[in-house]
């Protein structure tokens, strides 16, 4: 703990503390409060006084106790060793804290986020110009079997390279390079610190050009997210926000996952911690934990650290993006973060806007989602950061401020529907309320792949789903008999599509993840049932006959029975279906 006293506690009434006698504190400076050394941050400065938000339980703090300054803004450590770790909202390593203080989190513990003892095998880059600047790759470390960690010059530095370490084993705090910059020498190690509230610079933003594939059919087929895009998942409790976040974290084709448990359940983090190491990334064959960093600031942990956790995660995500990787960040739940803002704002007695939230809520939400994007990095690579934010609207009512403001800053919306969840239709993503504005951006990507009629099929099924809504309203008023078979058949096909395609069981070993090829083929089979069936109805075949086709039972179960590796079995199913439908017509003629 630093010994520079910058003032004294004047008032404590929760996690926001007033200090007086402030001499030289800086705005956003990281401080330690009281003799326990509770971590805090200066969030307001006024004549001789300061407001400090503390990241630990303030119980026992008294007026008159000292406040110690560190002269640094609240920052995270970035370097080899992040992957596979679990941190709290201000990047304290939870495993190490457990070794030190047992099952509960003791206050006043400061531990380095990155292990200082562990050595990494550093390989310097072969050709480095004499003049280097931020983002340049000095060398690499094979952090995991699959991830090459690029050691970059920190974004804001530039200068003449005077020394670069040779290949060898180094700890993260060993000097591996020296720069001369404006007459001073800067010593670089494999790690550096970056303030969490400042987004890391890039060379330029690039347009979206590819989907972030998630293996979730309703997402990839109907409401795709672009690499570098932003999406919100709003839904009342129990509608499936966390399960969706987990499924995407497990199966999406990003290189790095940053998962933030922000003000949610402790057991859900334990669930990730126990299940991820044993799950295998289908693309690399390695444990999913090797590409993941967890940030856990659960609901019972201090509320100010909950506010910080979002920025801590975003900064780590940008760091990996800067190396030219595709990063996906999940925040569960951004509403708890917004509520933390509200609570802190209330304690500072600021004027509230809607529902007690501070007037700057929309600005903060916008700033957060703006950190996403597909970018050309300072080092000249292409990297992306996709943000997937859960929203927990009170009473499941989407008209509340956090959902409404979030909608302004995202371009993809996976709205969870209470009725679907109650009927155990999972994922309960509503096909009526959800949307993706990325469809146009990634059309060329789809067209380039040989996914057959995917683009037209997708449009056709969306149309059918919307027609179904109108038709079921009629049925609700007058019963199904009022509709001609051709229209009742649309209802049938939509039910089939919901059961056989949209519903996806996260707990089934085969069903939990579908490649885009499997999705395309499944969709094609369902639509050929529709097309051939509609034609048959025109020839006088009845709905009842169509429903009796034996292949239908195979179609309903294809998601469970046909694995991603065995897709040719879908071809034989398609042939079987066609044969049975033609046979029906044959009987009639």
């Amino acid at each position, binding site marked *: 703990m630093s010994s520079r006293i910058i003032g004294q506690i*004047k008032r*404590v*009434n929760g996690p926001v503390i*007033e200090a007086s006698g402030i001499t030289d504190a800086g705005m956003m400076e990281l401080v330690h409060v009281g003799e326990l050394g509770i971590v805090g941050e200066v969030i307001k400065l006024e004549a001789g006084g300061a407001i400090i938000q503390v990241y630990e*339980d303030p*119980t*026992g*703090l*008294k*007026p008159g*106790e000292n406040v110690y300054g560190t002269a640094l803004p609240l920052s995270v450590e970035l370097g080899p060793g992040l992957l596979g770790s*679990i941190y709290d909202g201000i990047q304290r390593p*939870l*495993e190490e*804290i*457990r070794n030190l*203080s*047992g*099952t*509960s*989190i*003791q206050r006043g513990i400061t531990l380095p986020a990155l292990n200082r003892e562990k050595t990494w095998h550093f390989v310097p880059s072969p050709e480095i110009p004499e003049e280097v600047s931020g983002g340049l790759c000095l060398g690499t470390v094979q952090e995991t079997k699959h991830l090459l960690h690029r050691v970059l010059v920190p974004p804001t530095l530039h200068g003449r390279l005077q020394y670069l370490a040779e290949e060898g084993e180094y700890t993260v705090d060993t000097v591996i390079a020296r720069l001369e910059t404006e007459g001073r020498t800067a010593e670089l190690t494999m790690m550096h610190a970056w303030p969490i509230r400042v987004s890391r610079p890039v060379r330029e933003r690039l347009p979206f050009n590819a989907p972030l594939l998630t293996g979730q059919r309703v997402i990839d087929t109907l409401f795709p997210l672009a690499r570098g895009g932003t999406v919100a998942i709003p839904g*009342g*409790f*129990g509608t499936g926000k966390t399960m969706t976040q987990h499924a995407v974290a497990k199966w999406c084709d990003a290189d790095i996952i940053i998962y933030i448990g922000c*003000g949610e*359940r*402790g*057991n859900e*983090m*334990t*669930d990730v*911690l126990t299940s991820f190491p044993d799950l295998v990334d289908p693309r690399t064959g390695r444990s999913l934990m090797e590409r993941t960093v967890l940030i*856990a600031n*659960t*609901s*019972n942990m201090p*509320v100010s650290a909950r506010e910080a956790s979002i920025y801590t995660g975003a900064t780590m995500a940008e760091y990996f993006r800067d190396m030219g990787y595709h990063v996906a960040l999940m925040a569960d739940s951004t509403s*708890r973060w917004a*509520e933390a803002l*509200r*609570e802190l704002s*209330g304690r500072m007695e600021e004027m509230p806007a809607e529902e*007690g939230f501070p007037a700057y809520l929309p600005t903060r939400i916008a700033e957060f989602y703006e950190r996403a994007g597909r970018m050309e990095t300072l080092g000249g690579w292409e990297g992306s950061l996709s943000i997937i934010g859960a929203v927990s609207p*009170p*009473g*499941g*009512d989407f008209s509340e401020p956090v959902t409404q403001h979030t909608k302004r800053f995202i371009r993809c919306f996976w709205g969870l529907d209470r009725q679907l969840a*109650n*009927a*155990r239709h999972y994922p309960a993503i509503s096909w009526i309320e959800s949307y993706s504005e990325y469809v146009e951006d990634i059309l060329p990507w789809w067209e380039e792949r040989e996914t057959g009629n995917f683009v037209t099929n997708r449009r056709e099924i969306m149309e059918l789903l919307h027609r179904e809504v109108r038709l079921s309203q009629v*049925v*609700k008023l*007058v*019963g*199904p008999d009022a509709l001609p078979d051709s229209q009742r058949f649309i209802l049938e096909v939509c039910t089939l599509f919901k*059961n056989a395609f949209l519903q996806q069981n996260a*707990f089934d070993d085969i069903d939990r993840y579908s490649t885009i090829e499997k999705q395309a083929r499944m969709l094609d089979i369902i639509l050929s049932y529709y097309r051939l069936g509609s034609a048959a109805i025109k020839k006088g075949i009845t709905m009842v006959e169509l429903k009796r086709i034996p292949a239908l*039972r195979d179609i*309903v179960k294809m998601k469970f029975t046909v694995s991603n590796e065995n897709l040719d079995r879908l071809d034989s199913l398609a042939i079987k279906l066609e044969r049975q439908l033609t046979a029906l017509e044959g009987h009639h003629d």
Partner: protein
Amino acid sequence: MTEKIDLEGVQKTLKTGIEYIGLHRVEGPLVFIRKTHPVGYRELLQCVDPKGNIRLGMVLDTTADMVVAQIFESTTGLTLPDTRVRFMGESLTLPVSEKMLGRSFNGLGRPIDGGPVPLGMEERDINGKPVNPTARQYPRDYIQTGISAIDGMNTLIRGQKLPIFSGNGLPHNDLAAQIARQAKVRGTATDFAVVFAAMGVKHDVARYFIRSFEDSGVLEKVALFLSLADDPSIERLLTPRTALTLAEYLAFEKDMHVLVIMTDMTNYCEALREISTLRGEIPSRKGYPGYLYSDLAELYERSGMLAGFGGSITQVPVLTMPNDDISHPIPDLTGYITEGQIVFEREMHGRNIYPPVAGLPSLSRLMKDGIGEGMTREDHPHLSAQLFAAYSYVKDVRNLASVIGEEELTPLDHQYLEFGEFFEGQFVSQAKNEDRTMEETLDLGWKALKKLPAEELHRVTEEELMEYYEG
């Protein structure tokens, strides 16, 4: 460092000796004291009224010239000039021991059964400390409650927090007591205990629970923390905290499996709103403070299992939904924290279905990892999914029937209606003392499915159909 701690210790004893005479202001349960020594945030204090009665309080706001504290007992009888205040230099603690089983306490943890104060083995801060997520162990062992609506459809797992969302006049107390009586983990003879926290409930409700524990002969395994309807409402803020402090001690020091029943959480939240309003805080929804979520999480998260420890805490909080409205902040925020919910439906109660557990909105989030082969029975996951799906369709058919008339329904829809009748009348419905085994529950579920043709059963496998449906 050691030297400094000693010095502080001496200072503390000295200062706890200081008494301040006279209050600056009293407002409901809040007292304002001026010009004290530096007092810690959330420090415990004693308020001694002119007659010498001691009341406990906690510091909510501390500055050099004014301290605001909430008094946990009634402030009636406190006078401005003659009340004496002593600050205790620490936060409120509870002496805990196994001897507390079989005894009754008030919300502060003081005996109210006429017996002696049990000798505490250990003093524990009643606020607890947040558990490190890496120290938790994911709960997986199911508890057989003998109640089909729970065991079959919303299986309770040891270490889970599963609340009952009820309404005034619905039989939540019966269900909570029945769970407490019948709960067992099969195949293990383990040490269990029940910690019961009552907040603002009536005397007869407390008596009902006590009698129910007595009748099943487990009273000596139960610790009761009672803060009843006529006790000061502010005491309710402490009751669940003292109860959970004992539960943690029993679970993680004494390796016991502890079931904590907390009723009625609505009264707890109301007390919280009262204090918040008095302090002039900016309210969020319906006048409840913005920190209601975090405050409830501090309670509900004190459950579960810890890696390397033998015991567990299973919570069954009970709350009455104001106006039967599940979107009211109290059930809503609770549902966002707990691992599922058992929701009561007044309409089912009206049709004499006990327990009136609503089929669709009820959910056990931990069920998925605790059922199936090697745990309950291999058909359980698919069976329950199928029952949910079919029951959800029953609701659609009933709606349709109410519009076009039952006669107009297709034969298949009629079969669904029959299924619905059986499901509610035979599967969900049971007697208040009926204790069904898991097999009985699952078999009953298949019996219900037999009302439907096999082609309708998409969620079960061919093998399961062969074994349980045809057979």
